[in-house]
């Protein structure tokens, strides 16, 4: 059998598969190679055979877990905004700052740009992602899909690279070293809450399988 024969035979097989069930075929989003969508057990990962991109990575109880973790992170975020994050003292003077206070304190003149960067990447976008996930998962647990669920899940995914809470906590560590020789620094409640939230967010991101969520949405809308 020649190369072209083999190719056209392969293509005929794909065409037959696609005609039977268009949703049974996946094109790898990273390299365009076609795959047959087969059921994957929770905890296992289906990767693209050509480029190793993760296609399907279902988790056990993914909806409940995602919902719980997203709600937890949202509650933590709201709670920690007002509490003191760090307290600085030297020679009798002390200064206490919360995350919100830090952002609003920066918001004058061109410092506003800096305040925007921090406010967006550390507070607004992580909260938006958590809220969007809660909405989508909530809607998936009900009998009918809530309006705009698709758009909102796309938004949650698009926002993911811009939510930088874990980068911020490393930045806090560096800032502490920088101040260490100059003044005394005490951790506030918000600092510890923030550390917990970084962990919760990491667990939450690990509990979302995009493919599972899209597949569930497809079933719901039928």
């Amino acid at each position, binding site marked *: 059998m020649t190369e072209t024969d083999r*190719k056209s035979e*392969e*293509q005929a097989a*794909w065409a037959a598969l*696609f005609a039977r069930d*268009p949703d049974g075929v*996946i*094109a*790898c*989003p*990273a*390299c*365009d*190679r*076609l795959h047959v969508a087969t059921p994957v057990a929770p905890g296992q990962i289906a990767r693209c055979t*050509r*480029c*190793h*991109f993760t*296609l399907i990575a279902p988790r056990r109880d993914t909806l409940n877990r995602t919902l719980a973790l997203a709600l937890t992170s949202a509650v933590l975020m709201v709670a920690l905004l007002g509490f003191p994050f760090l307290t*600085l003292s*030297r*020679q009798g*003077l002390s*200064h206490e*700052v919360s995350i919100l*206070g*830090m*952002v609003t304190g*920066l918001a004058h003149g*061109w*410092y506003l*740009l*800096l*305040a925007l*960067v*921090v406010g967006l990447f*550390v507070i607004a976008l992580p909260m938006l992602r958590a809220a969007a996930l809660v909405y989508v998962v909530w809607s998936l647990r009900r009998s009918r899909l809530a309006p705009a669920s*698709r758009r909102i*899940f796309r938004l949650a*995914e698009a926002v993911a*690279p*811009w939510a*930088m809470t874990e*980068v*911020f906590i*490393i*930045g*806090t*560590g*560096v*800032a502490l*070293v*920088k*101040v260490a020789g*100059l*003044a005394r620094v005490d951790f506030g409640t918000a600092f510890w809450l923030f550390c917990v939230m970084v962990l919760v967010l990491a667990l939450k991101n690990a509990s979302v399988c995009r*493919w599972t969520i899209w597949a569930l*949405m*497809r079933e719901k809308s039928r």
Partner: protein
Amino acid sequence: MTRAADMGWIGCHNCGAVHAPGPSRCRTCGAVLHARLPNSLQKVWAWLLTGVLFLIPANLYPLLSNEIFGHEEGHTILEGIVLFARSGDLLVAGVIFLASFVIPVVKVVVIALLAWSVHFDWQMDRRRRLLLYEFVEFIGRWSMIDVFVVALLTGLVHLGAILSFLPGLGAVCFAFSVICTMLSAQAMDAKLIWDDDRDE
């Protein structure tokens, strides 16, 4: 190995659902369908060049200045790293050196390399190129560390005349540079890497 494009189909960039040509949006996730993202390389270069341009003032202007007993002193990104190293905090100096100097430079080089490799059809190992691409997408956000340090220090350290920190213009330029290079990496269509006719 058969690609969706070989069949004349369109694979959704967002969720992977396969479509016969026709619909403009994905039936599964609602994202706009493109066989390949339009003008991908052009957008990559536009964001990348903007990012590189912002890197210049980011390194020339002070990142942060501190005022100790009325004596103000500013330092740039590299001067800040040297200060940390001199004071013996080698770990912190290393982290900042990585996040604020090595990563931005490596990122720009890798994105440029990937864009050229697609444009000139270089015969490089494709899986390695995809790894590089994923690495750049993953690592980009970590460059923001220094910006957050500046925001924290200026927000936190307000002890009147004794000690305070002021943000420098360099911090904002650096933040914009990081944002631009992240957008550049996101504009890249990884499918282009696999679009030559070589067989594995």
